[in-house]
């Protein structure tokens, strides 16, 4: 039987030291839907995405991602989830190709598809260069290649348009549409609300770690 929710948050709270970054979140997102996360700086968007990726664990509450418990089945969630975050996750001294090869090895995927991926994100000509020599936009493009290599069931995109040039932004919009067409559940956190709304079906607005509006 298909899961009723791709995400299910029950009274989720997250505390860092004495500061509650998220407080008592309750929300459910059906599979293959796309959600826009909005809110001011410090509203808890990134923390929520990191919780969903199981990079961190909630302080309180129950979290189910793709039907798996975030506490007991983290490995299963990680297999099917990809996070495009502020941190690029690249090794600076390895080349773009070596970084992707490492991920392909860990995922058990053939490296034959890597040239195509690098071509797609526009890094073919720089595939042998160490990431240390890359601009912020090129690092973002490599992070997108990582996401595509993983082919996740749940894609978590934290400010995906940041650092990209105009052609990169168009490519990212096309990628989001493509992921949606493939049935990927998608969560997009951005300050570009109009752009985000045109790409997603639902919206969650956070304010000081609480849900202010869900539509």
């Amino acid at each position, binding site marked *: 039987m298909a899961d009723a929710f791709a995400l299910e948050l029950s009274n989720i709270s997250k505390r860092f030291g004495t500061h509650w970054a998220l407080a008592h979140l309750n929300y459910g997102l059906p599979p293959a839907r796309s959600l826009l996360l909005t809110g001011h700086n410090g509203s808890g968007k990134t923390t929520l995405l990191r919780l969903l990726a199981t*990079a961190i664990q909630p302080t309180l509450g129950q979290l189910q991602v793709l039907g798996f418990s975030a506490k007991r089945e983290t490995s299963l969630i990680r297999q099917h989830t990809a*996070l495009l975050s502020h941190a690029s996750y690249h*090794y600076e001294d*390895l080349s773009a190709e070596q970084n992707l090869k490492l991920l392909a090895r860990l995922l058990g995927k053939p490296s034959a598809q890597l040239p195509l991926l690098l071509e797609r994100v526009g890094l073919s000509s720089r595939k042998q260069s160490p990431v240390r020599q890359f601009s912020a936009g090129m690092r973002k493009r490599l992070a997108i290649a990582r996401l595509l290599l993983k082919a996740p069931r749940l894609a978590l995109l934290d400010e995906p348009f940041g650092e990209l040039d105009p052609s990169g932004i168009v490519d990212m919009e096309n990628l989001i549409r493509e992921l949606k067409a493939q049935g990927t559940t998608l969560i997009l956190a951005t300050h570009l609300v109009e752009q985000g709304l045109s790409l997603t079906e639902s919206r969650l607005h956070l304010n000081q770690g609480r849900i202010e509006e869900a539509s």
Partner: protein
Amino acid sequence: MKTGFLHNMWAVLLKDFQIEWKTKARLNALLFFSIATLLMFSFAVGPNVESKAAHAAAYIWLSLLFASVLSLGESFRIESENHALEGLRLAPTSLKAFFLGKTIANTLLLWLLSLLIVPLTFALYNVELQGSWVLLVLVLLGGAAAIAAPGTFYAAIALGARSKDILLPLLMFPVLVPALVACVKATTLVVEADPMQQLSSWLALLTAFCLVYWVLGTLLFPHVVEGD
């Protein structure tokens, strides 16, 4: 393609070698640091040739121990840059496999360093090897493994701390005392061709130390890294 435990371990090991091969920064820095340390010991002890030769093994292992602090810190600096370790964690990668891959890489680097500095020390301190070179190479490998396992574990703990450069030796040095003593004694006995047949007991201590810390490190490492 499979993504088993050994596959993950190999991927981490290969990645560390690729980075080292590309930059060669760590091995070069460690080699010059170790040579500088050995020279400082030599100057501090003075011109007494007998005293120098008698304590050569201690100088070798102290020099390797100090170099290991730099090496282990650097091995986790590359993991903290761009939150690369988090990227591997979310890939997902078995953290036990990661620990073993990283520890093997650190062991091999320290071993290689020891193979470079031991002949130099023997020349500098007028040491004549009376025992077997093969046995000496094995003792060096055992010592490198004994430093690398707790070192890799504590480097991961220190990674999240503000004063990680201070914390790592503070955590690591007390734990390594038995291994250090065993390494110095075993090396001295190999150099002197083990006249009283004492070598086996020191090798047993070194083996037991390695077993305990490689097993403990593998089991505890995921808890250190996953704790938030």
